[in-house]
């Protein structure tokens, strides 16, 4: 009889067997080890960036253009002002091109194209585009806009290459978020007698905005760190220039040029520039998150 059985026996009925306990420990250990291993390179990257990059940070590092004078130890090699401003300008223009188009394509895929053969085709090509190496986009713009027009490099050509790179990332991430918006929300707006375009602009997009910010940031961060598409579309120069139709410096290209230098101080400038790039993307992330959090509450 259960009621008369000793307490220990009653608990034993529900006890975890030693074999299962061992398997549990092993699985936990493996998962923990995997997490730690994945973190090691991340921590090392941040550590080296800070260790080597912080040393070259100074006011003049941010406020002067690189001089190109690397032969005489007495003269200054300059800072990375033109690279910072160039990256901001090129990426800003690329975002202005890629984000509206990307969201537009995502809206079309979700709200209009749905499962039609053309929508499926668009999805397929967007997926292909995601996997295209970044240098191919640079090459494409180089062939079409530099060789094709017989003109020289320009900031806006770099922006176009980067926007091609951003486009598939923006489309796919925005599409995923738009699919998450409940159909009931669209239905209730349509049932009020709202035209479809108003449902999209006033209901669907505002609801999806905080989610879409994440994908957009990822795209911007990826574009900001790309060297290859800029090498033969926008670069290279040392001077600060706000005209996007001129040669334009950028942080990744500056880093690329500096690390190949035999001069230690110039290599150190590359570390400083790399740290600057990471901090810039971090700041962008923080700002966007604050903005989207505020808009969600409103």
């Amino acid at each position, binding site marked *: 009889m259960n009621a008369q059985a000793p307490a220990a026996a009653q608990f034993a009925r529900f006890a975890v067997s030693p074999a299962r306990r061992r398997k549990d420990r092993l699985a936990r250990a493996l998962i923990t080890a995997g997490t730690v291993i994945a973190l090691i390179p991340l921590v090392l990257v941040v550590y080296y960036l800070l260790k080597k990059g912080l040393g070259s940070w100074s006011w003049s590092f941010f406020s002067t253009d690189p001089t190109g004078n690397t032969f005489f130890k007495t003269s200054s090699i300059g800072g990375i002002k033109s690279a910072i401003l160039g990256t901001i300008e090129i990426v800003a223009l690329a975002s202005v091109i890629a984000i509206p188009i990307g969201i537009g394509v995502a809206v079309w895929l979700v709200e209009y194209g749905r499962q039609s053969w053309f929508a499926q085709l668009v999805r397929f090509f967007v997926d292909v585009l995601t996997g295209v190496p970044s240098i191919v986009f640079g090459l494409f713009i180089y062939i079409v806009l530099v060789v094709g027009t017989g003109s020289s490099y320009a900031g806006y050509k770099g922006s176009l290459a980067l926007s091609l790179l951003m486009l598939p990332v923006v489309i796919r991430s925005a599409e995923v978020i738009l699919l998450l918006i409940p159909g*009931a929300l669209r239905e209730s*707006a349509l049932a*009020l*007698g709202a035209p*479809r375009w108003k449902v999209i602009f006033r209901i669907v997009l*505002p609801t999806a905005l905080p989610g879409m910010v994440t994908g957009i940031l990822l795209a911007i961060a990826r574009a900001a760190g790309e060297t290859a598409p800029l090498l033969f579309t926008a670069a290279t120069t040392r001077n600060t220039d706000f005209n996007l139709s001129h040669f334009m410096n950028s942080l990744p290209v500056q880093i690329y040029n500096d690390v190949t230098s035999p001069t230690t101080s110039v290599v150190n400038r590359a570390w400083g520039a790399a740290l600057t790039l990471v901090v810039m993307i971090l700041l962008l992330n923080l700002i966007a998150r604050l903005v989207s959090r505020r808009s969600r509450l*409103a």
Partner: protein
Amino acid sequence: MSSDAMPSQTADAEPANVEPATVEPDSQTDSPREQIAPSPAPQAPTATPRAPSANAAKQGLSVTLEKLHAFYGDAEQVKGIDLEFRANEVTAIIGPSGCGKSTMVRCINRMHEEIPGAHAEGRVLLDDADVYGPDVDVVAVRRAIGMVFQKPNPFPTMSVFDNVAAGLRLSAGGRAGRGKADMHAKVETALRGAGLWDEVADRLSEPGAGLSGGQQQRLCIARSLAVEPEVILMDEPCSALDPIATLKIEELIEELKQRVTIVIVTHNMQQAARVADRTAFMLSGELVEVGPTQEIFTKPSDSRTEEYVTGKFG
């Protein structure tokens, strides 16, 4: 039936109808309101005498279904229904799950065709205008025939005030108020109409999603009232609510029928008995019987109706 008389409406044809130009209020000649609900012409007699109303300014319109079929792809879910919803009356649709109640109701304001692959055939007359007619603007149809859904679904990004105002703003070009004071007055009227004003008057700027479930549902009713429809379709409006909130909605329905025609789908037969003037019983996509609620529940003419209302199946 001939296809030219009863054109099938598909979702694909829909985007052409949402051209903003067709909903401009300035064009007096081809106002969508007049297309949908022309004032009853003498040569077009409607069999529906209008019920006397306390609010003479606003009246409901009758809705008549003629040989309505609804499809999901090739599957026929509603199989030829002829049914009349009388003006300023509450008509309840009862029937077991999957019998096509919701599908039928969604055909009335042409929401059915929003589902990919779905279409409807037949005629739905609002007063005497066919909402499936060739030149009809679906946007105008939905403005005239409002809808309340099963789950309360206030717009999550908007405040209580904006949720109600959204009805006006989203359908601007219809009867939207232009001025701020005008908008405020209309929102207040709609909220009072939905019996919610006293509860939310001091929290109009708070998120609509922060209200209780019953309040959210009345907010959704207020939102559809703001557009001043002639008919309101309710698709199981109380199935996600507790009994107290349900009671409030039912009291509200009683008041609302002074102004609008109400069609309510319900799983709850007691609810149909409480609120409906007339009740229709559906089974497997067909209309079995319709009549005064009292009659349907006490002495139905069809044996299947009797079995259903006495709880023998369903």
